[in-house]
């Protein structure tokens, strides 16, 4: 312990503002306590969510406290970032605050760890979180559960920061499950609708399936490596057998956790349903931050994944399959939030392609740009839904405010949102110079390059050479890029272009959201446009290059180099090849947009109520390949029926209690009855029995 203290003292960040790192999560926790308290106080008076209630009594305080803690947290994060830029740090800055689970040789501390990777995540979480908090003030202010909303949102940020700042797997797991809890609470925020409550529960349980994998990974680590903190595991990782069963198993179990949290096949099913929550929640939790936790976990565990090429192949392949699978579903959704939800699933797939092939920076880069443009898309959609709601509210009609068939021509009413959403759309579609182009290109280029030369290419997945798998992943990624461009353009066309289908009376009430909502949109728009400058490729002379690569070098440099079998920094393929890849990517994106403009006719759409059913494959897509139904029939119903009919009624009530327990008592009663028959009370009978007994005993003794 003394030695540790001395070692930490020598860290370049010692004594700087970084010592306040604990305050980063504590500020939002404070917000949770205050807003939660106000929510409870308000309840004693009014009762939450009662239909008649108007704006909450404490809405004023909450509107200040809720976003303010995020602003402070972001400011602190920026200050710490400044200190980190000044300091030349190779090792992470670690602070152990107290012993959490000290049991023999398992010593788990409540410890935080600050390094370059954590810093990127902290900036995204607090920065974009701050914008979404501010947006929420406008979006949620009239909700009777307003303080409760901000309490949950603050609590979410607390857990998310614990997740990215934790210095060991168990502390990370606290954040991991904590954000799942907040997601559960916020999806089911309007809990009086069964659909919402169902969606929240589904999210939690599906995530738990993933968490089971995460737990097993931790157990394997402790049983075979003996430590659970990142530094310790990192130090031990090189001495594990490269590509051995152990490290592969650890990585695969861990990835099961990632598949749950980050909505990958086969556990993605909860995320589309999660759109039941308020739209800012979808932006913050189900697009920008929480769902990327799985990507973060793989990058954080790069020292393990780079030792397990087969696991890397699995991650990349699942990522590629998820990307295309979700993108196809996105083609046929009518609910604007569902389009974005499947788009998120698909984009998360890209991130996993990145981290799976060992291009950790590329994965994180896409995580950052995605946080901007998807956050913007969700908030923009939120603005539209907000306007639609207000319009229907005015005319007292109960139509679906999220269905694109009820929208159309919104650019006339919401020009700013329209422009900003197009920026985000171009970014996600991969049109230069918007941010998504750079990050997506880097991911795809990495997959292509690694297919040629890497430890992954040399490995085999079910007998298939890794190189082949990665070329397939590259093609999947490219195809998904085409679909992304199509479904996003479709969404824009149907929502903002053509004529308006909301209704005659409603049109007069459609208007742009207030500044408290558009302000954050503009900020995110700037990010969506320019975040690509964080990591420009060497080939494009637009400014400083590989900034993010250099920044993350101390954390993921060595694992990246190990996987790529080349010197760190990438760029091992020829300039000509790189230009070709970029051109292909641009061609695909432009092709998708052009195709969508050419084929889709928003003028032909009719409102939802008058729309015909889909047919053929379109119907399959609209019903999301019936995966929910299949899961229900294959897992949920059989488990329930097995438990009820066989285990409870059969085994418990029937076999154990009926036959064995009460059977025994019936037997005892029966014997008692025989006994009582013997007690006739007649002396003669007793005498006979006595004689028989004596004879029996004597006989037994003599005949022995």
């Amino acid at each position, binding site marked *: *312990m003394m030695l*540790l203290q001395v*070692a930490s003292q020598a860290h370049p960040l010692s004594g700087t503002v970084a010592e306040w790192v604990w305050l980063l999560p504590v500020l939002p926790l404070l917000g949770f306590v205050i807003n939660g308290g106000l929510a409870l106080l308000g*309840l004693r008076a009014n*009762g*939450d*969510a009662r239909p008649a209630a108007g704006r909450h009594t404490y809405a004023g305080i909450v509107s200040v406290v809720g976003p303010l803690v995020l602003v402070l947290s972001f400011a602190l994060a920026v200050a710490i970032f400044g200190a980190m830029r000044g300091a030349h740090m190779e090792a992470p800055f670690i602070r152990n605050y107290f*012993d*959490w*689970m*000290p*049991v*023999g040789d*398992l*010593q*788990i*501390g409540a410890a935080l*760890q600050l390094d370059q990777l954590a810093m990127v995540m902290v900036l995204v979480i607090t920065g974009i979180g701050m914008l979404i908090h501010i947006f929420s003030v406008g979006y949620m202010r009239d909700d009777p559960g307003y303080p409760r909303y901000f309490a949950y949102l603050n609590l979410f940020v607390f857990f998310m920061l614990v997740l990215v700042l934790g210095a*060991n797997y*168990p502390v990370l797991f*606290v954040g*991991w*499950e*904590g954000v799942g*809890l907040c997601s559960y609470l916020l999806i*089911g925020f309007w*809990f*009086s*609708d*069964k659909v919402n*409550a169902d969606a*929240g*529960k589904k999210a939690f*349980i599906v995530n*738990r*399936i993933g968490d*089971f994998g995460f*737990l*097993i990974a*931790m*157990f*394997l680590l*402790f*049983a075979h*490596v*003996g430590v659970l*903190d*990142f*530094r*310790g595991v990192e*130090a*031990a990782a090189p*001495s594990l057998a490269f590509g051995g069963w152990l490290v592969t198993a650890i990585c695969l179990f861990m990835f099961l956790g990632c598949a749950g949290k980050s909505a990958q096949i086969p556990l993605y099913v909860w995320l589309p349903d999660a759109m039941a929550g308020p739209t800012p929640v979808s932006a913050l939790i189900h697009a920008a931050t929480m769902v990327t936790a799985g990507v973060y976990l793989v990058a954080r565990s790069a020292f393990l994944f780079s030792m397990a090429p087969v696991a890397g192949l699995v991650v990349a392949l699942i990522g590629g399959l998820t990307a295309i699978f979700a993108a196809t579903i996105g083609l046929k959704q009518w609910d604007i939030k569902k389009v974005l939800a499947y788009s998120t699933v698909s984009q998360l797939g890209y991130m996993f392609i990145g981290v799976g092939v060992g291009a950790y920076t590329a994965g994180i880069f896409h995580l950052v740009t995605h946080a901007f443009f998807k956050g913007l898309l969700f908030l923009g959609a939120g603005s539209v839904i907000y306007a639609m709601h207000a319009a229907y509210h005015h005319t007292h009609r109960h139509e679906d405010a999220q269905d694109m068939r009820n929208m159309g021509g919104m650019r006339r009413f919401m020009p700013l949102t329209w422009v900003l959403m197009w920026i985000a759309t171009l970014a996600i579609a991969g049109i230069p110079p918007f941010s998504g182009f750079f990050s997506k290109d880097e991911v795809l280029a990495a997959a292509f390059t690694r297919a040629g030369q890497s430890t992954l290419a040399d490995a085999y997945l079910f007998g298939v050479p890794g190189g082949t798998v990665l070329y397939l992943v590259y093609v999947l990624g490219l195809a998904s890029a085409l679909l992304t461009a199509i479904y996003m353009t479709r969404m824009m066309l149907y929502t903002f272009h053509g004529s308006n289908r909301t209704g005659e009376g409603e049109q007069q009430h459609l208007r742009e959201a207030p500044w408290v909502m558009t302000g954050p949109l503009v900020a995110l728009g700037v990010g969506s446009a320019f975040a690509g400058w964080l990591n420009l490729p060497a080939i494009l002379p637009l400014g400083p290059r590989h900034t993010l690569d250099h920044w993350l070098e101390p954390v993921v440099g060595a694992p990246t180099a190990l996987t790529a079998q080349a010197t760190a920094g990438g760029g091992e393929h020829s300039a000509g090849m790189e230009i070709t890849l970029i051109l292909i990517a641009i061609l695909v994106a432009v092709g998708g947009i052009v195709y969508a403009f050419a084929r889709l006719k928003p003028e032909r759409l009719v409102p939802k109520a008058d729309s015909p059913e889909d047919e053929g494959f379109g119907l399959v897509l609209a019903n999301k390949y019936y995966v929910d139904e299949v899961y229900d029939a294959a897992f949920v119903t059989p488990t*329930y029926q*097995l*438990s009820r009919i066989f*285990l*409870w009624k059969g085994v*418990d009530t029937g076999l*154990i209690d009926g036959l064995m327990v009460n059977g025994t008592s019936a037997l005892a009663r029966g014997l008692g009855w025989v006994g009582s028959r013997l007690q006739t009370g007649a002396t003669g009978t007793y005498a006979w029995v006595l004689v028989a007994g004596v004879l029996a005993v004597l006989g037994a003794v003599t005949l022995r």
Partner: protein
Amino acid sequence: MREFLLSVGYDAWVLPALLIIPVAGALLLLLSGSRSAREPDADQGNHSARMIAFGVLVLEFLVSLGLWWSFDPASGAWQAPVDSAWIPMWGIRFTLGIDGIALMMILLTTFIMPLCVLGSWTSVTTKVATYFALMLILTSGMLGVFMARDMFLFYVMWEVMLIPMYFIIGIWGGERRIYASIKFFIYTMLPSLLMLVAILYLGIKAGDPATGTPNFSYDNLVANPTLAPAAALWLFGAFFAAFAVKVPMFPFHTWLPDAHVEAPTAGSVILASIMLKMGTFGFLRFALPLFPGAAMHPTVRGVIVTLSVIGIIYGALVAMVQPDFKKLVAYSSVSHLGFVMLGIFALTLQSVQGALMIMISHGISTGALFFLVGIIYERRHSRLIDSYGGIARVVPVFAVLLTLVSLSSIGLPGLNGFIGEFLVLVGSFKPYPVATTLAATGVVFAAAYLLWAIQRILFNPLDKPENESIPDLNWREVALMTPLVVVIIWLGVYPAPVLRRMETAAQALVTQVEKGAGLPASAPGPRIAVRAGAAR
């Protein structure tokens, strides 16, 4: 604090005092009860009975609380020891003492019992004084089990504990209380008699051959094992029967749902929080140290670990389909206690510590769940989950509490339930990787049954008119739940002080059983030594 306590001789009198205070309180209650029953104003008498019981149990808690500081975590010896002759002719002595395990069980008991009085405040209206007197006697019995270092004394306490609970269920219980109480009594009594025979055998065998006086000293039996392996196996079987029913282990659990459902709220709480721990405590204190060879016999161990894992999954699945919320909680106990048994028989320091943590956490969380069921039952007179729906809008404080307690029971990290589950699983994984992996699926099922249940109670549309005017928690109920919530969060965030107090005892147990069974010591295994520079 420790110096002050020792200066008043706390160590010397605290354990006997903890046994005497409740009994004295019970006598007081019976005296005042027989007087007040004759008075016209029975309500007044009932009220004073409640106040007396509550006062006595608060005093009991405060007295016991000193143990937290007077206890020396580093010492392996019995603490606060008491030893005097009791029935010399039969070699029975009045020997008390605690280790870290007993310490936490005692504190759990004295913490829960006053809350049980608060929880019975308005729900028990008949024979109030008798009810609370039984509860006080029960307290002494339970504490005695945790303190006893004489096998015979232990058995006496074991039975003292059984009888009041039989009456509490049988008199103040629900509609099928007679069936439930008799089932409870026979189910737990029969194997206890087997254990009595085993204790007599042990005591007589360890006795002085010259005088023929038996010797029931626990320390002597552990220190001087003289049993042949076959005899040890039989005796272990007798102890196993008594404890396995109490735990309850699958398939000896079917008394539990009936007893829980029929018992009054406080009865359910005591059963779940404390009496279920008697079984696992018995394994830790008696069955394992006395018969290490039998308990760690590969077949025995394999069977018990298998039954534990079955219990975990089976309990969770059956809990999921219960229409009655009390039964759901009862089956969830089967699942939780399965984790405890797995941890005990995996026999690593982490798994045993985890088992102990679950024993504490389950006591807190499940107790809290039963209190909440009782609170809502008092208002709506239904335990059926389908009677509710959407009541979070009507009773928001209740909703917050039920959600929090459920999350703690699910094992959400940051709350108490996680610590024990994690430690059990992480510790059991090395000796039993397959069983532990199966057991870990329990975390999924636990989320499924509890979240589904609270959704159907708290969330969904508020579609039943009779639920629209349920009053929320009153101040007494808030006062009852607050300590539980505080402990739920404290044990989840900072369990280290509790773990440290139990570590010496847990380590001693693991070492002693391993040695007795001839197992290789489970020293930190062939691990890659990379502790330097690691953050803790």
